[in-house]
């Protein structure tokens, strides 16, 4: 299928008088790594939550994996993975128990669970941590594990909300290796980040300012468009116009 992974037209979210997401439109291709950038409070998490079906859009249209966000909620759920901005594994369960739980919730059979679980643990090099409580692992490991668990059911699209926040550069690099490996398998990556070096790893990026999408293109084209030498400069040029203060 050459279908678009995400199609979004005029998507808007209001909280009372406040417009958190203001009429955003964009498409994401299947297999693409799409960076969703923006300063604190720009509306990234809110937009992502609408696409995942955690929150109703106030207006606009969106389709995820070809399914309508208003009407085909259940079908969307079967096709996406999600890693929220808050840590999303159970700290008081072991690595293995977390894998079994999330795999089980997504309906994996025992055999699939074992295969996938072993593969995932080898890939992460966590053979010695299998029986450890997730709460006792360093943050970088937790995040890598959370990502692998979020794609354990091989979704078409995975939504990652600041997956590398607070993680050291070496681990971030490893994290992006995992993202590339997933993208190679055809999983569409929709990722928010505050790190501009990570923005460079994306196929295309959008930059949100005060709820709007003010720029959307490949990193190279954006630099050219803003006559900038780095993504940092592009980001600052756009962020300067922001009125919303970070919260």
């Amino acid at each position, binding site marked *: 299928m050459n279908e678009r992974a995400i199609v979004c037209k005029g998507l808007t979210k209001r*909280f009372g008088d406040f417009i958190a997401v203001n009429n955003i439109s964009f498409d994401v291709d299947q297999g693409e790594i799409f960076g969703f950038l923006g300063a604190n409070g720009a509306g990234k998490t809110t937009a992502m*939550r609408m696409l*995942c*079906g*955690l*929150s*109703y859009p106030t207006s606009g249209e969106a389709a995820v994996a070809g399914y309508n966000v208003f009407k085909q909620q*259940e079908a969307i*759920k*079967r096709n*996406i*993975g*999600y890693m*929220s*901005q*808050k*840590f*999303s*594994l*159970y*700290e*008081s*369960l072991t690595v293995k*128990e977390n894998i*079994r*739980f*999330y795999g*089980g*919730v*997504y*309906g994996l059979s025992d055999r699939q669970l074992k295969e996938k679980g072993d593969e995932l643990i080898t890939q992460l090099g966590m053979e010695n941590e299998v029986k450890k409580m997730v709460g006792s692992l360093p943050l970088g490991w937790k995040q890598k594990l959370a990502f692998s668990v979020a794609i354990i059911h091989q979704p078409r699209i995975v939504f990652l909300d600041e997956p590398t926040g607070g993680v050291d550069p070496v681990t971030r690099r490893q994290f992006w290796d995992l993202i590339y490996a997933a993208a190679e398998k055809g999983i569409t990556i929709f990722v928010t980040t505050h790190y501009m070096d990570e923005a460079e790893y994306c196929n295309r990026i959008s930059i949100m300012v005060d709820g709007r999408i003010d720029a959307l293109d490949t990193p190279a084209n954006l630099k050219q468009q803003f006559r900038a030498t780095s993504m940092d400069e592009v980001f600052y040029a756009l962020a300067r116009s922001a009125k919303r203060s970070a919260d």
Partner: protein
Amino acid sequence: MKQFMVFVRKEFHHVFRDRRTLLILFGLPIMQILLFGYALTTEIKNAQIVIADHAKDAASEQLISRIAASKYFTINSVALADNEIEAAFRKGKVKCVVVIPAGFGNDLLHGNSAQLQIIADASDPNTAKTLTNYLTAIATDYQQDLYPTANVPLRIEPLTRMLYNPEMNGSMNFVPGVMALVLMIICTTLTSVSIVREKEMGTMEILLVSPFKPTYVVLAKAVPYLVLALTDFVIILLLSVFLLEMPVRGSLPLLFLESMLFIITCLSLGLLISSVTSSQQMAMLVSMMGMMLPTILFTGFIFPLENMPVPLQVISNLVPSRWYYMIVKAVMLKGLGPGVIWKESLVLAGMTVVLLTISIKTFKTRLA
């Protein structure tokens, strides 16, 4: 179904790894029952009793001297006519009257049995029960000393009569009340806190994004706590029967089923609390304080409902524990069957359906 079991197993992991949960789950009921048990078995010393000796023979004198020798009793007056007994109790100092009928010694030696009447003031049921137990024990001892070798059937027959409170309301009623209270608090606290914790931690979002149906999330949360609360019920029941010597006169399976119904009612209430609170502290506060007060006030085990103003009586109908309390009392203490308690059971079942429906409906499948 398999997804469901995966969820239930995860929930058990949480319970057994969280000290606070374990404390509420097992510490609370044991503590409550032990506290109460301790209050029940406080020793009584030098209680004032009156002995009406109509026999005035050797046997009666021996028995009286044994009672006098015991540290529990102070004998007030040895001669009393039947019509003076009531007056003695009224004054309030006398806790117990022992009547030794005429011909006591003769009956004991030559007849098959001798009677001994024990009348206790049961407006203080704990004391009354303890005193009659002591007196019965003294009489049994005495008779065994008379016939040390013979394996005779009990010859002195103590006839106990509880004045003012023949059903021994009080201690007996307290246990079903404590059962209702403990189950209510445990079920509401644990379910509401465990759901709100997932909201706080952010794992709830992941569950809602998964294909696992929100209704199942709610039910999968309830099932483990149903099992655990039933375990609690068994613990409470064992402690009540073996430690507090509570009778179970009615059918045990019936009691179990009714308790299961009540537990489900409480779990539904806990689910409801979880959808109206957003922090663990708040959920804990609402479940503990918010449920404790109405349960204590409106169940009837501390403040009799009959004596309440009508508006409060009407309110008490809304409190689930009130109905459970009536059921437990009927089954445990009076040995009544389903024919008598079906109305109460129906009320509880109705409440459960309403609460469960509301809590599943209000469970937010989309947050904000």
